[in-house]
C-alpha cells in the first residue's frame, strides 16, 4: 500500500466531442463574464455552431477510426457504435435548433426583469438579449452526450443532471407569454428533480445489491449474487422511473405537454428532439446492458408502459387545441412506439435489429420534430406565436407552401408511406414482430390510426377551412429558420424515399451492440 496513485487513462480522442462541447460551454460562460454585451451574441453564435460542428466532425472521425472494444475513461463512458450514432443525431439536431434559437423573437431580453415592469421595457428598448442561452444550450448538449454514453450509473446521473439543469432554465426564458414560460420552467424543474431523486435512489439500491454502479459490473453481478432480489427489483423500478420520466412515458408524461407548451418554441424543439434521443440511449444501456439478465422481470412491465404510453399519447392528443401541446402528446405516443423496440430483445441478431430500428426512428423523428416546431415559430400574430389551432384555419390559402410543408411533417408523424416516419415505424414494428411482440404492434397500429386523426385534423384546418378574418401572419423567417425547415423537410423526404444509407449506418452502429 504505497501512496502512489496511478493516473487514470483518458481516451481524449474518443471523448473529444464531449470535451469540445463542454469546453465551448465554459468559454461561453467566460464570454458572458468578460465580453461587452453588444459583442456577446456575435461571438456566441459562431462559437456554438463551430463547437457543435467540431464535435460532430470528431464524432464522425471516431466512427471512422474504428470502434473501441472496451469502455473509455476507466469504464465511465462507453464510446461504442450506438453512442456515436446517438451523438451524431444529437449534435446535428442541436446545431439545427441553434439556428432556431438565433432569433430575437424567441428569448426574453432580461430574465430577471419582471414581466410588464418598467425595467423590462428598459431592457427591451436597450436591445438586451439573454445571451446565456448559448452556453446553457452547450452544457445541456454536453450533458446529453454523457447521459447517452455513460457506462456507469454515476456518470449517467451526472449526465442526466448536466443535461436537465440548463434546460430547466432555458424553459423559463420565453420572450412572450412569460408567465406560461416561467410556470413551465418551475414545473419542469420540480418534477425533474423529483424524478432524478427516484433515479438516484434506484441507483443506490442497485448498488446495494451488486456492490457496483458500472453497467458491466451490474450485468455480471446479476448472474452470481443471490438473495435480496427485492432490493434489486425495487432498484430497477426506480431507475426505470427516472429514465421513463425523461422520455415522457405514461404515467410519467404529465410534465411534457405543459413544458412543451410553455417553453420557448426553439427550446421545445431542442428538447423534443434531442432529449428523447439521449434518454433512449440511456434507457437502452440500463435495460439491455446492465439489466439484460433481468429481461424476464422488466419486460412485462415495459409492455404495460409501452401500451399505456401509446394509447394515452394518441387519445389525449385528439382534443388538444394548442399546436405545441398537441405535438407534445404526439411525442408521448412516439415514445410509446419506440418502447416497443426496446422490448423487442432476443438473440444478439434480434437485439441488433431492434437497436438499429430505434436509432433510425430517433433520427427520422428528431428531424421531423425540429422542422414542425420551426414552422410553429413562424406562424405568429400580435401576441407572438399563434399557438391556438383555431388560428391556423385556412393557413393553406394564406401561405400554401408553409402549410404544405407542415402538412408533410404531420403526415410523416402519422407514418404515411414515402415519409421518414413510415420507415421509422416500420423498422420498429418489424423488430417488435420478429421479437414476438405482435400484440404490442397491433396496439401500436391501432393507436397510430387514432393518432392519424389529429394530424389530419390540423390538415383539415389548414386546407379545407376558410381563413379566419384576423388570421395570424407568417413571420418573414430568418435565414436560420428557413434553413431549418428546408433541412428538416429534405431529411423527411430522403429518409422516406431512400432510407437505405441511414439504415446501413444504423446497422453498422448497432451491429456490435453496446460494449460492456
Amino acid at each position, binding site marked *: 500500500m504505497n501512496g502512489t496513485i496511478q493516473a487514470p487513462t483518458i481516451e481524449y480522442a474518443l471523448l473529444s466531442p464531449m470535451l469540445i462541447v463542454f469546453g465551448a460551454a465554459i468559454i461561453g460562460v467566460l464570454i458572458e463574464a468578460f465580453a461587452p454585451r453588444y459583442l456577446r451574441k456575435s461571438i456566441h453564435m459562431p462559437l456554438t455552431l463551430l463547437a457543435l460542428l467540431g464535435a460532430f466532425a470528431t464524432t464522425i472521425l471516431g466512427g471512422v477510426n474504428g470502434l473501441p472494444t472496451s469502455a473509455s475513461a476507466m469504464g465511465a463512458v462507453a464510446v461504442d457504435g450506438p453512442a456515436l450514432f446517438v451523438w451524431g443525431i444529437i449534435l446535428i439536431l442541436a446545431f439545427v435548433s441553434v439556428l432556431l434559437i438565433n432569433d430575437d423573437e424567441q428569448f426574453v431580453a432580461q430574465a430577471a426583469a419582471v414581466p410588464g415592469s418598467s425595467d423590462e421595457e428598459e431592457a427591451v428598448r436597450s436591445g438586451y438579449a439573454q445571451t446565456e442561452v448559448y452556453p446553457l444550450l452547450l452544457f445541456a448538449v454536453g450533458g446529453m452526450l454523457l447521459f447517452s454514453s455513460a457506462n456507469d450509473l*454515476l456518470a449517467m446521473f451526472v449526465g442526466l443532471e448536466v443535461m436537465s439543469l440548463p434546460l430547466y432554465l432555458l424553459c423559463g426564458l420565453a420572450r412572450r407569454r412569460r*408567465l406560461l414560460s*416561467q*410556470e413551465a420552467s*418551475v414545473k419542469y424543474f*420540480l418534477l425533474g428533480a*423529483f424524478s432524478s*431523486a427516484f433515479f438516484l435512489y434506484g441507483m443506490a439500491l442497485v448498488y*446495494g445489491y451488486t456492490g457496483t454502479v458500472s453497467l458491466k459490473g451490474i450485468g455480471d453481478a446479476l448472474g452470481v449474487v443471490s438473495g435480496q432480489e427485492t432490493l434489486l427489483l425495487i432498484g430497477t423500478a426506480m431507475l426505470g422511473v427516472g429514465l421513463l420520466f425523461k422520455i415522457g412515458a405514461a404515467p410519467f408524461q404529465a410534465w411534457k405537454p405543459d413544458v412543451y407548451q*410553455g417553453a420557448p418554441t426553439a427550446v421545445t424543439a431542442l428538447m423534443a428532439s434531442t432529449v428523447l434521443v439521449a434518454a433512449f440511449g440511456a434507457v437502452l444501456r440500463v435495460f439491455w446492458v446492465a439489466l439484460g439478465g433481468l429481461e424476464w422481470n422488466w419486460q412485462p412491465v415495459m409492455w404495460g408502459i409501452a401500451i399505456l404510453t401509446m394509447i394515452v399519447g394518441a387519445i389525449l392528443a385528439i382534443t388538444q387545441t394548442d399546436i405545441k401541446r398537441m405535438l407534445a402528446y404526439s411525442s408521448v405516443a412516439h415514445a410509446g412506439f419506440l418502447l416497443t423496440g426496446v422490448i423487442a430483445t432476443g438473440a444478439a441478431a434480434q437485439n441488433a435489429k431492434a437497436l438499429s430500428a430505434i436509432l433510425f426512428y430517433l433520427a427520422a423523428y428528431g428531424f421531423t420534430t425540429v422542422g414542425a416546431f420551426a414552422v410553429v415559430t413562424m406562424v405568429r400574430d400580435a401576441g407572438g406565436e399563434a399557438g391556438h389551432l383555431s388560428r391556423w384555419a385556412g393557413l393553406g390559402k394564406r401561405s400554401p407552401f408553409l402549410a404544405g410543408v407542415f402538412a408533410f411533417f404531420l403526415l410523416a408523424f402519422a407514418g404515411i408511406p414515402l415519409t421518414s416516419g413510415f420507415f421509422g415505424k416500420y423498422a420498429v414494428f418489424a423488430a417488435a414482430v420478429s421479437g414476438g411482440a405482435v400484440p404490442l404492434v397491433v396496439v401500436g397500429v391501432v393507436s397510430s390510426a387514432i393518432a392519424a386523426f389529429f394530424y389530419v385534423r390540423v390538415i383539415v384546418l389548414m386546407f379545407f377551412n376558410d381563413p379566419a378574418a384576423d388570421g395570424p401572419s407568417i413571420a418573414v423567417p430568418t435565414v436560420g429558420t428557413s434553413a431549418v425547415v428546408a433541412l428538416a423537410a429534405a431529411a423527411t423526404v430522403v429518409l422516406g424515399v431512400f432510407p437505405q444509407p441511414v439504415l446501413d449506418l444504423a446497422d453498422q452502429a448497432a451491429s456490435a451492440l453496446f460494449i460492456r
Partner: protein
Amino acid sequence: MTTHYLVLSALLFAIGAVGVLIRRNAIVVFMCVELMLNACNLAFVTFARQHGNLDGQLIAFFVMVVAAAEVVVGLAIIVMIFRTRRSASVDDANLLKY
C-alpha cells in the same frame, strides 16, 4: 448492522416524497427533494459500508455537488417566478393544463 440505516434512508426518502406532494411553497417542496437526495446519500454510504468499497461514499460526494448545482438553478427559477407572481405557492402556477 446496516439495516437500520437503510430503513432510516427509506423513511427520509418517503418523508421527502410526501413533502413534495403536500407542501405548497415551492421552496419547501424543493427542500423535500433535497431531503430525498440526502436519503439516497445515506443509502449509498450504508451500502458502501456493507460492501466495504468506497464507491458509495464517493458517489455521495458527487450527489452533494449535483444537489448544490440544483439548488442554484432551482432557487433562480423560483425567485424568478416569485418576483412575477408575488407568490411562491406551486398551486398558483397552473395556467398550463388539460
